[in-house]
């Protein structure tokens, strides 16, 4: 079930009618949350519910065993990680692995057909599998590292693992942040409730109005409809940059808003990434829950930046490449991860050897270079094949300022301007105390959110699945 579907509206209405009645019966409340989450997930394909339950049970039991039998903790941890990685391997990467092995055998003049022999279930990617397996893994790792006491309440554990607002597309919630919230009987104040509603409205606006309308131009461009050159591709990629940002951030905002209505708090997953003035800065603002996951569970355990410069670069390359692979079992995601590693490496070397920032204010130049690097990076992410990557990049770097395509795409381009305006408002409110105060007055706030609701209802674009569902 998707947030932007009709069944979800019915589902959420029933859920929030039942939720307050179970205020004092906490275990029943968690049971409602878990059952609702399973209905929410099972609506897509109920068979894959067993996967969440299995993966969850393995981690729930492993964590208890790790804590109880410290001398054998490593064995239980390895078992838990193997199960999770195994599930990911079978359901997400088996097709890619089989394809690559076919290439190797082909190269050795011994052609074999492995991909066709994969069982059918291995070819279906369960929605949100990367999100919940990572969430589940972080729980056992944290227990192993003694940063977290394992919960003995299975209802708490599955409420954490399967909570429907974040189950299929994050944010990836950490057990140490969330389990303690479950122990407290939280009362949702009127302000918290209103803040939750605001987040939900903003999220829906970002997804249905901005992302879905921008997707029209992007989808046509990548389907090869009337492709132009030069500036055409830069605008297409800028539209895609906003599309993916508002699509994913929209989902995260709705998830945070729904959690708030239940009395829980999820951390922010995006922090205006396109105002970043370096790629490092970008990664502290983009998909924060995933970046910090990779930092804490891959980069730092590999040695982080504490084992010399070369090792630090190598660790960063490994982390970013894995992060690319996390997004999908396609070669373009791996290239995307490696491209970001390369640019981050260059950025590190340049900033270490050329300390320009102390002499000049180069913020605008840095911002422009960062945005340029990010836009080029998105080509690897969006393209469906290496050929398409080459086609789009050569289009981008062919000088051409022909703007005839504007006539065909007036509507998506208007939403592009709206997207810039929407992000621009953040900068204005950050820098202008007057504007910030004005936007918080009751009248302006009411008017703003009423207009956003109207836009969601009447200006929504063609309905599209959330992009990050496929990961």
């Amino acid at each position, binding site marked *: 079930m998707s947030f932007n*579907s*009709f*069944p979800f509206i019915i589902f959420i209405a029933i859920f929030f009618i039942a939720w307050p009645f179970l205020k004092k019966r906490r275990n029943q409340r968690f049971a409602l949350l878990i059952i609702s989450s399973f209905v929410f997930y099972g*609506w897509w394909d109920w068979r894959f519910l067993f996967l969440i339950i299995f993966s969850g049970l393995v981690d729930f039991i492993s964590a208890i065993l790790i804590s109880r039998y410290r001398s054998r903790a490593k064995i239980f941890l390895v078992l838990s990680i193997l199960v999770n990685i195994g599930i990911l391997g079978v359901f997400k990467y088996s097709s890619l692995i089989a394809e690559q092995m076919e290439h190797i055998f082909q190269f050795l003049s011994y052609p074999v057909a492995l991909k066709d022999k994969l069982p059918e279930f291995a070819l279906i990617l369960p929605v949100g599998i990367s999100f919940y397996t990572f969430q589940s893994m972080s729980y056992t790792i944290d227990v192993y590292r003694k940063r977290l006491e394992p919960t003995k309440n299975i209802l708490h554990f599955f409420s954490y693992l399967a909570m429907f607002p974040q189950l299929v597309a994050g944010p990836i919630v950490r057990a140490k942040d969330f389990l303690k919230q479950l122990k407290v009987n939280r009362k949702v104040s009127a302000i918290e409730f209103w803040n939750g509603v605001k987040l939900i409205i903003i999220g829906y606006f970002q997804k249905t109005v901005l992302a879905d309308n921008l997707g029209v131009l992007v989808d046509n461009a990548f389907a090869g409809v009337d492709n132009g050159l030069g500036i055409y591709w830069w605008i297409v990629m800028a539209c895609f940059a906003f599309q993916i940002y508002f699509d994913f951030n929209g989902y995260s905002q709705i998830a945070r808003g729904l959690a708030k209505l239940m009395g829980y708090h999820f951390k922010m997953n995006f922090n205006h990434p396109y105002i970043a003035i370096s790629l490092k800065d970008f990664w502290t603002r983009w998909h924060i829950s995933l970046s910090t996951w990779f930092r804490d569970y891959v980069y730092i355990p590999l040695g982080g930046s504490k084992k010399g410069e070369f090792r630090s670069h190598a660790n960063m390359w490994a982390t970013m490449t894995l992060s690319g692979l996390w997004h999908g079992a396609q070669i373009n995601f791996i290239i995307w991860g490696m491209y970001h590693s390369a640019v981050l490496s260059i950025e590190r070397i340049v900033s270490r050897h050329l300390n320009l920032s102390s002499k000049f204010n180069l913020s605008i130049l840095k911002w422009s270079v960062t945005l340029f690097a990010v836009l080029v990076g998105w080509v690897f992410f969006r393209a469906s094949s290496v050929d398409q990557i080459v086609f789009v990049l050569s289009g981008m770097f062919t000088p051409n300022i022909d703007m005839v395509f504007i*006539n*065909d795409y*007036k*509507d998506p381009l*208007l*939403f592009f301007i709206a997207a810039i305006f929407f992000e621009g408002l953040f900068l204005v409110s950050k820098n202008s105390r007057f504007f910030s105060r004005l936007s918080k007055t009751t009248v302006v706030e*009411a*008017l703003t*959110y*009423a*207009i956003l*609701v*109207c836009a969601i*209802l*009447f*200006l*929504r*674009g*063609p*309905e599209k699945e959330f992009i990050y569902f496929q990961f």
Partner: protein
Amino acid sequence: MVGFTVALVYLAGVFKPKPISSTIQKEKFWADKTHSSSKYNIIFIGDSRLYRGIDPKTVSKSLNGLKVLNFGYSSGGHNKVIFEEVSERFVGSDKIRAAVLVLSPYSLTPKAQENSHFNQEKERNKKDVFSRRYIAPFFDFFDPVKPSEIFQSNDTIQGYHEVFKPNGWVESYKVPSNPNYALKVYVNDFKDNLVNREILDVVYNQVREWREQGVRVFGFRIPTTRKMERLEDSISGYNEKEIRRNFEKAGGEWIDIDDRYRYTSYDGSHLEKSSAVRVSKKIGNEIQKQLNK
């Protein structure tokens, strides 16, 4: 706040312009066409030239009210999957039954046999189909509009202006109208993708099979522009005379459209609405003549 929002939504809903192509109606249209269990006497089969070019209501009038379905899909090809689907939708064998094959050159190419539009609709999950057919239409009030529809007068808005009619016709025109637009597109479409003998054999075999089952089979080439027809004849491998001969040999009845260049296309491929109605009337009359024989 809630009252204010509701009032604003109501006003916006009442005063918003009518979209040039309704999303809700479009989704219902395709879901109905693909998943309806209604039965028909006459079923037209083909691609977008068909679903934009033949009005079943007009055909039905010429056929004394027989039930007619336009079973056209974007880039639709003629293959066994579609033929079986159509066979399921005929009325009982005691009533008049006829399949009308709209044999455009593209519909006989290998790429068209993928029938991706039909398959996409066919494979849509049941919940979505139910929602599109029976729930979403109640929310017509919330049909989305584009900014250009708000700021421009309706007849100057660029893009497809479509009305989705019951029984499968999309009454269409496009702004700006450009009868040469599709020529370039079709040059690409036929690159390494020519009318294929094996596909034609499948068609002829199906004609024989239907004839054995008592289903009349008609075929014709739907009018487009003279330039497009010349282009298709020169690059697609489509030989109308030969196709007609083999089609008739298999038991099919060919409908000749003698005034084929007197119809208007807005993009050089598809017929605009008044031409679609005219050609539908002509086809209906021709079928009636044949049925009377």
